[in-house]
């Protein structure tokens, strides 16, 4: 057990050091990622002005802006750049053999390296994020009493949901990448996934804006937990049993997808034949 912990700790530390090499580029890149939000803010301002009414889909203008800013946070947890394509590449060019020979588990290793990546990312990104949220603090002033700015329970639920969105996204994308055992090239599958997650995870707009039957579809798939859901908790859109129920649902998706990626890995390894040297 201690041996295993030491291994994990070493993996985590190596990955962390690897990630912190380009700090300056990181910080600048993070700050620039907020630029598109400026356009969104002005777009929705124009839309609210044209409508002339106070609310749109249950959001005031300030809440809309807060929503966009907060999706940046949830995306920072749930985005997994290069995870699925990396797994497929490793399967294709035979690098995966290393996990079959060495006593290191592929999913475990990838999880830790992702974790290290994220920790390194946050340790640098916290600066730009803090700056932007400080400048935009006015948008968070008049949130309802259920919002995370007033209620400790909501804040805790928000954090829990964010952490789970990281795990959920990890297993979701791993499962997609592991399909590579059968297809060798999954870029078209990833494209479809990206397209859907772009529009149905809620980082383009609050999902409450969707009409039926889209609303039903969005509720039936796990994508909403990647961007929309943590933010909805923060803004106080979810309370009581609904909140608890959805958190459980998020957790169930994690269990399900973790199981799926385990099975895919296990069966994939059995049909795998190594090419190249």
């Amino acid at each position: 057990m201690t041996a295993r912990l030491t291994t994990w700790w070493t993996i985590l530390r190596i990955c962390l050091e690897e990630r912190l090499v380009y700090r300056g580029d990181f910080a600048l890149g993070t700050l620039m990622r907020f630029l598109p939000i400026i356009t969104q803010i002005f777009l929705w301002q124009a839309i609210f002005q044209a409508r002339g009414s106070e609310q749109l889909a249950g959001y005031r203008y300030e809440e809309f802006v807060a929503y966009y800013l907060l999706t940046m946070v949830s995306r920072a947890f749930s985005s997994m750049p290069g995870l699925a394509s990396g797994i497929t590449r490793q399967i294709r060019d035979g690098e995966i053999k290393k996990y079959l020979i060495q006593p290191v588990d592929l999913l475990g290793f990838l999880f830790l390296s992702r974790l290290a990546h994220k920790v390194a990312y946050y340790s640098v990104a916290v600066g730009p994020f803090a700056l932007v949220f400080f400048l935009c603090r006015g948008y968070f002033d008049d949130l309802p009493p259920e919002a995370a700015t007033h209620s400790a329970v909501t804040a805790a639920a928000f954090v829990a949901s964010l952490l789970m969105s990281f795990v959920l996204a990890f297993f979701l994308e791993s499962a997609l990448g592991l399909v590579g055992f059968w297809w060798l090239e999954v870029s078209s599958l990833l494209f479809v996934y990206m397209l859907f997650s772009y529009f149905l995870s809620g980082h383009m707009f609050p999902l409450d804006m969707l009409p039926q039957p889209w609303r039903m579809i969005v509720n039936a798939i796990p994508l909403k937990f990647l961007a929309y859901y943590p933010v909805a908790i923060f803004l106080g859109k979810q309370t009581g049993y609904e909140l608890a129920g959805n958190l459980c649902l998020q957790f169930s998706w994690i269990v399900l997808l973790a199981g799926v990626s385990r099975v895919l890995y296990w069966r994939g390894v059995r049909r795998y034949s190594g090419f190249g040297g």
Partner: protein
Amino acid sequence: MKEAASYLRVFLTFARNSLVRDMTFRTNFLLESLASLSWMLANLGFYLLIFSHTRYIGRGSGWGQYEFFVFLSTTMFVNSLVQAFFMANVDEFSEMIRTGRLDFALLKPIDTQFVISLQKIDWSSLVNFAAGGVLLAFSLVKLAARPANPLQLEPLMAVLYTLYVLCGVAILYSLMIALSATSIWLGRNQTLYDFWFYITNFSRYPMEIYSGPWGRPLRWVFTFLVPVLVVVNVPARLLAQPLRPETSLHWTLAAFAIVATVASLAASRWVFNRALTSYRSASS
């Protein structure tokens, strides 16, 4: 004149070679076209969703659903042209500097900027150009058929529209080539290239949305300093909300767009040439 003809021949050869390459992997070509098309449709869905909640973007701005779709198709024209002709090449340019392959382009008896900018044409990007055409035609028919204040199209509008779309392409191209030329000085500029995407992001919506104490300076900067706002706004406005003589401000903007195009092209040419003088081959 003779020189221009030979440049045209070189360009046509580039175009043919790219097409041959694309047609070698036909399924891949088809998939890429399909991908950019479905991305476009998803975007259209987003705007349909917006217009299911509001009638206009901006109070009194006149950007209703079909006016905005004219705007959107203009964005599609400009972006698909930039993507088809320049994007891959300029991307390659930074890489050529890093690896030293730029030497080969410099050695050729032809303008270096010309070779760098046009040697590969991404034909699959033109699918969005066609899709933009369909959307534009549909929106114009809708605008011309509306009972109140129907749109009247004149031949002059079509000519000016084409001209301004090309101006828009030229402005974006200048920005792109100037940014990537700086990688001669910086060694590598992935962040700058991302920056290009974020900057052009500002050109995607009608300029009226940038209002208020924060919006006005932003609008000023992106109209006069980095003229990305005129790229789509001027041609789209020309069609969807014809520039009337009484709105002299709009004519000023249209005139300015020409000036901005010439200035951006000249400035980017200058930056490009300046950067080339600092190039130290990195090859073996």
